[in-house]
């Protein structure tokens, strides 16, 4: 019986552009920035890349459809290039395509890219587009992403009988922590330290979320080159290798949206993907065994409920853990050591690979001391695309040999 791809894929090299409002740069410039770093890190040449995947969500304001944009930008020599789109999991989907390609033996070396150029939208936030199809657009409310995710808070308060003030306190700490970590990161979009009072008092975007509960809308690209352990051992002898321990995706079945069992206070997909990822990676006690997290904090409340869905905090206990500093950079399981979507920024198609980039560099101890997570063994990345009632969740666990 199939057991997944644990230890079958090595991350040979990675690159990541500076995230932010890159007014002077096209998607291609961002991709090239990540590519140059990635190629140098992998220690290979363009001709060694046998296949490529590129993740991108809002194609209408960036790279369009198909694989041509990436191939044309880098002038990849007539190799297979595939554009993948799976909401905010698009970057991890690209990574999955490349990982499966080498794990299957079809190729020795594959490239995964993710890119998004959001600052050509013309207004703040993401464009209002029929992401769930035309019928859904007629039946769905006049909603935006913050409004859809904000409902996690009212549902969580209803389920656990927690006062909204307590939730607000916990999610304020989440944003504060991301800003603290973001200040230390030269590639991050938002690098200013801000106080918890500023966060809490920021104007409402969608009740109970304020402006500082929302992640940055950024331009950026990230990239990975993957190979098999055998090829990696030849290309990088006597070096630490970062291996994929688990790679899982779960997609809503429609149960959340049309059946009455889900209570709206968390993610059925994350729970499912986490169970499968821990099994694939051989993790029995995630709270003890996972060293660090890069999760999908599109909104602070998403991070809060995800701590429970990932089984790091027990049900109903995430606010306590958060307020106790459990997820701070010097806490037991640091979450968003790079500033997260909140401060590193969220160029949708790039985000999954940006998270993998952070875990990869943490595991290789490449960051300055002040940014390093202590004694990391396993790092987990998590993307959540769509809305709480219908979404795609991807989880990747990476580890040293």
């Amino acid at each position, binding site marked *: 019986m199939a057991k997944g791809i644990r230890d079958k894929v090595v991350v040979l090299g990675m690159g990541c552009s500076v995230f932010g409002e890159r007014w002077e740069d096209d998607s291609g410039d961002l991709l090239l920035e990540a590519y140059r770093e990635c190629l140098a890190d992998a220690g290979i040449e363009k001709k060694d890349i046998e296949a490529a995947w590129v993740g991108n969500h809002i194609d209408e304001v960036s790279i369009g459809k198909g694989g041509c944009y990436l191939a044309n930008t880098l002038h990849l020599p007539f190799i297979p290039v595939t554009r993948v789109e799976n909401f905010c999991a698009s970057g991890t989907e690209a990574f999955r395509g490349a990982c499966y390609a080498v794990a299957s033996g079809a190729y020795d070396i594959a490239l995964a890219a993710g890119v998004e150029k959001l600052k050509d939208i013309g*207004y703040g936030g993401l464009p209002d587009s029929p992401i769930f199809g035309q019928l859904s657009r007629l039946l769905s409310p006049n909603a935006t992403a913050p409004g859809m995710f904000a409902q996690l808070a*009212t549902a969580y*308060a*209803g389920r656990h009988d927690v006062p909204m003030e307590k939730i607000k306190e916990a999610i304020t700490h989440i944003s504060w922590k991301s800003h603290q970590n973001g200040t230390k990161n030269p590639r991050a979009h938002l690098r200013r330290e801000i106080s918890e009072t500023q966060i809490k008092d920021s104007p409402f975007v969608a009740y109970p979320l304020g402006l500082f509960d929302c992640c940055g809308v950024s331009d950026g690209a990230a990239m990975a080159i993957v190979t098999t352990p055998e090829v990696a051992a030849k290309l990088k002898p006597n070096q630490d290798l970062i291996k994929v321990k688990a790679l899982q995706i779960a997609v809503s079945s429609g149960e959340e949206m049309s*059946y009455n069992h889900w209570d709206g206070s968390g993610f059925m997909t994350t729970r499912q993907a986490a169970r499968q990822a821990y099994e694939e990676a051989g993790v029995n006690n995630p709270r003890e065994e996972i060293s660090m997290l890069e999760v999908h904090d599109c909104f602070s409340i998403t991070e809060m409920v995800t701590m429970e869905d990932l089984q790091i905090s027990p049900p109903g206990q995430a606010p306590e853990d958060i307020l106790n500093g459990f997820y701070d950079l010097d806490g037991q399981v640091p979450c968003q050591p790079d500033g997260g979507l909140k401060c590193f920024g969220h160029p949708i198609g790039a985000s999954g690979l940006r998270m993998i980039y952070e875990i990869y560099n943490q595991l290789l101890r490449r960051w300055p001391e002040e940014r390093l997570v202590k004694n990391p063994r396993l790092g987990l990345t998590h993307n959540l695309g769509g809305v709480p*009632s219908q979404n795609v969740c991807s989880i990747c666990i990476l580890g040293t040999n």
Partner: protein
Amino acid sequence: MIGISSYAGYMPRLRLNRMTIFSAMGWLNPATIMNAAGDKAVANYDEDSITMAVAAGRRCLNGFDPSTIGAVYFATTTAPFKERQNANIVAGALAAGENIRAADFGGSVKSGTTALLAALEFVAAGSGAKAVTCAADCRLGKVSSMQEMVFGDGGAAIMVGTADVIAAYKGSYSISCDFVDHLRGANSKYDRQWEERWIRDLGYERLIPQAIDGICKKYDLQVADFARIIYPCYYGAARKKINQNLGLEPGQVQDNLLMDSGDTGSAHPLLMLASALEDAAPGDKLLLVSYGNGCDALYFEVTEKINNYRDRTRVSDSVRNQAELENYLQYLTWRGMLPIEVGMRGEEDRLTRWSLVWRNRRAILSLEGTRCLECGTQQYPPQRVCVNPDCGAMDRMEPVTLADKGGKITSFTSDMLAAGTNPPAIYGNVDFNGGGRCMMDFTDCTLEDLQVGKPVYFTFRIKYIDTKRDTTFYFWKAVPSEEVPISG
């Protein structure tokens, strides 16, 4: 016996105090102070003549099986569509089915009674057992006009039939003439009127008595025979004169609701009739007279059945359940009378794909879901594969109308980012009673009215307006309320 089996009035929740208008615009037209007393009912940002007709129609059909309706007539002078049968949208929202006769009546504010006469004659001719007339209007006067002061928004619905008749239809008398006091050309948004003395002296004061006289002669009656005489006329002096000349007792004349709603156009005679029926006793003779390029006079006699007519939403409840619209500019914005900046998010294109709408019309218009014949799970939106993870049966579904089921809130928010003319956008997840759920807009409420677990009822509203193509699209919204005016 043929007559009225059910009735309902609908006034939108919002009231614009006429002094609010005068405070803003009295400087331009000080004479509007003459009409600045009381409130006018105003449609919410997501209401129009169709949604108000549906609101009245659903209250009227409450407790009756809508599939027994043979005809749905919609009367208005403010139809959202010139071509595309408006009555079909109303009938769809009433879940009346498609094997019916549907028609739009318009052209005059007496169209409400003309439609009612057509409904009575439809039943009298044996064309069907029941017919429902839904009338509503949302007329606009120009800023600082007399019309802006006196016109109000509202709807009314009357179901007629042969069974359970609470007021028997006894006869009618009509006058139709090209007497032009108000008019709106085919491309005009605003009402235009001739001199007020002309409207009052030659219009109301002559035509209404003529109609009353005509029906009395035709059926050999005296005005004293009527317990109530119901006619719209927003000129106080003219009403006084008409009543005096006809020798009417004060208690005989139905209040014209001018202080509560204003003149609701095509709906107004029916709205006043609904009010009159609330207080009527068996044996009462009612005379209903409409006015607009002539008159229709209809004569009814209340039956014993009115005593069994269940206690239901009353026009007076609408008067009580209201909220003040304090900002006159908000009213102008909602009626499309101000060039406002909605932001680029609001400029997103809203092409309506009619073939898609046709395929899904029952889910959209009638809020129809499905129920699994294998496991009984009720679900929305309609599914072909059962959503119950322990069932999963394929193509074993029956339709189920959810509009009258009610539901409860499972999550909610209030969104300042969403584009619209009534920020914040308030929406959330709603579980239908009996199963199924929908992420829905909430309306007629504020954030403070929402709570997880709170009951809601459903209301048919404007979902969006595609201004580029002059198209209004409708769907259902949820209203949080402990009191539910509509149930299954």
